[in-house]
């Protein structure tokens, strides 16, 4: 089967500094890929290449077999869910408007959009009375849930999530993790999930990508990573996860 996302010899440089180089990776449809690595290792960079927010200096990124630079990027992005790092909501819009953002960009059929909003607040575990609130009237956990619902509202094939559960307490984090896992199982969506928490990476991922200084240290199932860590860096990570 053709991979849904494919990086082909990708390179990204900022000034003198090479961030990633010779980056090759294929992701199968329906995968839940967690990307873990130290801070600054290039996780966000890799993620943003999928929806063209970052364009590689060399190499090609294919989505569903097509070179994204030959596609209409605007259209592509509307069909890829994106939960930005810190799940920043639009402060000028109510929860409802936030969630309806992409459906509104895609069509102006009110009813369809309303249905999508209703469906996704339920799936994301939000109460309906929150719909008319503004982001700063929500708790951290509620904001993250809205961020997820917003990313999913147009029922995309691919979901990009950049440390989406960063700033919440342990209990909420656990709930959110269960939620996203359930969503993945129910929808068969392909998820790329950046995290710096090895436990999160292991629990959620069907595949785990370990990044270190702009290169792939190891790519495999959680079990493979756990039992056969390839480098010292991975070993250290895995050791941490057992604590």
């Amino acid at each position, binding site marked *: 089967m053709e991979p849904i996302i494919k990086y082909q010899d990708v390179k990204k440089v900022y000034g003198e500094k090479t961030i990633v180089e010779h980056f090759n990776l294929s992701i199968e449809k329906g995968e839940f890929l967690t990307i873990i690595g130290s801070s600054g290792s290039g996780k966000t960079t890799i993620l943003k290449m999928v929806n063209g*927010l970052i364009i590689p200096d060399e190499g090609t990124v294919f989505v569903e077999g097509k070179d994204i630079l030959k596609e209409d990027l*605007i259209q592509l*992005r509307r069909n890829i869910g994106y939960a930005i790092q810190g799940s920043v909501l639009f402060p*000028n819009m109510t929860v409802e408007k936030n969630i309806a*953002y*992409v459906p509104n960009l895609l069509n102006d059929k009110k009813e369809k959009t309303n249905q999508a909003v209703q469906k996704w607040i339920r799936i994301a575990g939000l109460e309906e009375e929150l719909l008319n609130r503004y982001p700063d009237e929500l708790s951290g956990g509620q904001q993250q849930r809205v961020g997820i619902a917003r990313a999913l509202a147009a029922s995309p094939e691919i979901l990009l999530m950049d440390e989406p559960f960063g700033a919440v307490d342990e209990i909420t984090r656990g709930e959110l993790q269960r939620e996203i896992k359930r969503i993945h199982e129910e929808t068969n969506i392909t998820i790329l999930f950046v995290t710096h928490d090895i436990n999160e990476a292991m629990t959620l991922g069907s595949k785990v990508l370990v990044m270190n200084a702009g290169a792939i240290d190891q790519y495999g199932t959680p079990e493979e990573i756990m039992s056969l860590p390839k480098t010292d860096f991975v070993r250290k990570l895995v050791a941490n996860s057992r604590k």
Partner: protein
Amino acid sequence: MDLLKEMIDLIIGRKEFFLNLLWEHFYISFSSIVIASVIGITLGIVISEYRGSSKIILGVINFIYTIPSIALLGILIPFSGIGNVTAMIALSIYALLPMVRNTFTGITNVDERVIEAARGMGSTRFQILYKIKIPIALPVIMSGFRNMVTMTIALAGIASFIGAGGLGTAIYRGITTNNTAMTLTGSLMIAILALVVDGMLGFFEKMSGRRNRKKRKVRIILCGGMIALLIIGIAGNMIRSNQNSEKIVRIATKPVTEQYIIGEILKEIIEQDTDITVELTQGIGGGTSNIMPGMQSGEFDMYPEYTCTGWNLVLGHTGVYDESMYSKLRKEYEESYDFTWKGQMGFSNAYALAVSKEVAEKYGLKTCSDLQKVSGQLVFGAEYDFFERPDGYGKMCEIYGFTFKNVRDVDIGLKYQAVNEGKIDVMDVFTTDGQLSKAQVVILEDDKGYFSSAKEGIVIRREVLQKYPELETVFKKLENTVDNEAMAEMNYQVEEGKKDTKDVAHTFLLEKGLLKGAEE
């Protein structure tokens, strides 16, 4: 307390006048605000989208902002003439800075991550702008807007300086005709207008704030209200300018009391004797130098002028002017401008020297040459201007050989008082000064002909005279009807007696038997 009563009487007695000014003020400010908002917000958006241009544009706008308002008006007058249009342009230019700056700041301060979220979800650049950036920047833009509105309403007070309407007219007229109550009333009404509008904006801002769940409704009301105001404004102005669509002459006057009176005299008698409608623009700041361009561009058809001003300032001659040169003056006006002089009313508003009656009697003074003999024992006082001008103090002393004991700078408004109190003995006066008619002073004859003659006359475009020959008859009627004493007396009634210029003009025409009703 007296002043307060005076103000109240003024407002009640001249309700129409003030309401009209209020309306004009509102109209001028409102138009400028709309123009500045549209251009300012657009510019602010453009430079925030194309940051490269922001430094230059903001620099230019900042620079323009530092030009003093009077100077900016002076710069604009050659291009857009005298009146409302120039005022609106100037006000819009000033109002631009707060709008551009706040729009720019508001937009550039929007959190980068929010913008990236919108971009990552597939918004076009335009969608990011109107769905994200502008709504988030709105409170900052709104605060700039409120500042700008208050500032524009206040600044519109200077519009009258260049012959535009508005409450500044009351301030300016109050200053030039020594009517403090009128000046204060004008200022107070501007302040109140600014406060009320700002209060209303604050209220609407609160109502349409994002915490208010009914904001859609408020927005609709607000938009509806704005559009309604705009339509009322435009319609109102159309009706107002339609009123006089037939035969019109436009008269301008300078900002001095007697010109206000002459303006009213001309208006009343022309409108009585002919079917011409007179549009009177009173008290144009800068006087001749700003009225002449208006005459040349055809914005004005006539204005009262003084012969020596025409000779020296307009035609550019140097040296003393006397009335034997009148026909030459007229000829040069006709050749250079195609304007002519008509209807001299008889008085001359020239410089002269005056001494208190006491001093005159003590030394037996009748002429300036008499004064020379005793000048060593006397103190001379004049306003700053008289000492500075080339045909002023220095040259005068040279010609007459004055050697005053002492010389003093005296404020123009306090000169007469200074003479009364014996602080100065000799002063310069204008021969139609309102205070002359009551003051205990004697004017000394200018026996060496040092001071230029300044007879009043009407400068009129010849084209207008050809179009409306009936004006000739009107001017004829007015010739030699007012001598210096009579003009001084009328000035006095306005400046000290606080009479309305219109009433003084009417009484004058009545007494001269020039009104139709009075003939019978």
